[in-house]
């Protein structure tokens, strides 16, 4: 109702029919302090919580701590002004499944803990594109590719060009529509599969793939436009630089991939021999 005040009867009925009544009743009973309901909740979903904690955590000890923290937060450790236990149970609305909600709580607690611990780690802001390219080239021994000429003016020019490309790329992503931006970030930043992205957003994997291709096209157009209009590049310069940068990264990536494949082959031969 908050998002659609003029919701019709069918929409309201559809919403009500979609509520997980069994799960919601169990949570309400637990919230009211029903011991039998608590026993049922723990018995039915302890495995779900522990399994999610194991998959998210680095080791068994952290997983155990995380699972215990979840149950403690669900049960409630503090009391409010009325003496009632403060619990997260009241946040469950019944729209999604109870198992999914519990997994979301595990994920949320893990992310928040990680962000607290990584707050003290210095994060280099606005990491320029040429730094990434330089790291990549140093690791693969292709420093000569990055520094094509010993002319300082050329070196400076390349660095500036890479900086411009990075900024244009960032701006192009920010200008995308919300759904396109989310698809791009879930795919490239979070490494999710198109099938899972499609299931989440409500369309087929093939549709997700078409949307991704369309997003790439939009990004290219935006980057070319930004580099032309805001940085004064000529169209052929834009296309050449994009191609060269991608090629450099592609070479380094191909070399890394080839090395990884070679190591995997050696390992397999070694295991078969012994």
């Amino acid at each position, binding site marked *: 109702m908050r998002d659609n005040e003029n919701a019709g009867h069918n929409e309201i009925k559809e919403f009500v029919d979609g509520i997980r009544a069994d799960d919601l009743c169990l949570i309400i009973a637990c919230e009211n302090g029903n011991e039998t309901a608590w026993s049922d909740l723990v018995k039915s979903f302890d495995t779900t919580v522990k399994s999610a904690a194991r998959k998210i955590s680095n080791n068994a000890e952290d997983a155990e701590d995380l699972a215990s923290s979840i149950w403690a937060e669900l049960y409630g450790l503090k009391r409010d002004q009325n003496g009632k236990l403060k619990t997260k149970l009241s946040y469950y609305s019944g729209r999604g499944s109870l198992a*999914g909600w519990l997994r979301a709580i595990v994920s949320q607690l893990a992310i928040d803990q990680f962000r607290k611990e990584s707050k003290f780690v210095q994060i*280099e802001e606005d990491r320029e594109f040429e730094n990434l390219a330089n790291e990549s080239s140093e690791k693969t021994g292709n420093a000569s590719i990055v520094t094509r000429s010993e002319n300082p003016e050329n070196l400076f020019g390349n660095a500036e060009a890479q900086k411009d490309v990075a900024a244009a790329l960032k701006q192009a992503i920010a200008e995308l529509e919300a*759904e396109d931006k989310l698809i791009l970030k*879930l795919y490239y930043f979070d490494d999710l599969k198109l099938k899972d992205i499609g299931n*989440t957003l409500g369309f087929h994997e093939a549709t997700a793939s078409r949307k991704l291709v369309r997003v790439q096209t939009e990004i290219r157009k935006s980057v070319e436009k930004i580099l032309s209009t805001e940085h004064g590049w000529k169209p052929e310069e834009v296309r050449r630089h994009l191609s060269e940068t991608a090629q450099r990264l592609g070479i380094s990536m191909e070399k890394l991939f080839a090395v990884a494949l070679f190591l995997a082959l050696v390992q397999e031969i070694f295991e078969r021999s012994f």
Partner: protein
Amino acid sequence: MTSEFDKEIDTLLRQTAKGEAAFAAENAKSTIENPQLSHLDADEISAFAENALPEKTKQRYTMHLADCSRCRSILSNLISLNAETETEVIMAEKTEKVRAVIPWYRKLFAYPNLAYSLGGLLLAFTGLIAYVVLQNNNASPGPEISQISEQTEKAQGPSFNEVLPAGESFSNSMMSNSTMSNASPNVSTTNSASISAENKTTNALAANSNMSVAAPPKRSGK
């Protein structure tokens, strides 16, 4: 308008993703500076992940998730967890279907202990049957009586065969005697009858020979 996968932009985006931590730092700062930009809670994220929201609510959450790296990280973790759980459930269902297809006689061999137990029982049962059959064979009276008849036959000569109906051999009579206990008295009775008959014949012959010796010569004196 190209509809092919753009490899150059794909490469650039993948490289940009490595610097996503900078984006996250920016978003974290913007969240702190703007307290009105609140995060989604676990219930909202889980409902979004399961596509269980009305369209307008979904659009609102999408706008937040597109710009909030913290909530998007929680969402991506949750999507991965849900996908893995779904895969495990599908594998469990497939295993259950495979088990249902197995015929009943193969199920017996699915559990080694059960198979061994059944095999042992089968052997024991076979042994018991064989024992019972052997016991029955040993307890049968036919063969003893046939031995006695054989001895008697040897003592009396070939007359025993004359007692038998035409065409019936000795072994057949023994087989029938072994199964029919009533036949044995008849055989012995028949044997004694033949013996008495032979005795009478022998006596008669002996008597005739004496008479022929006793009646000599009547032709003397002329």
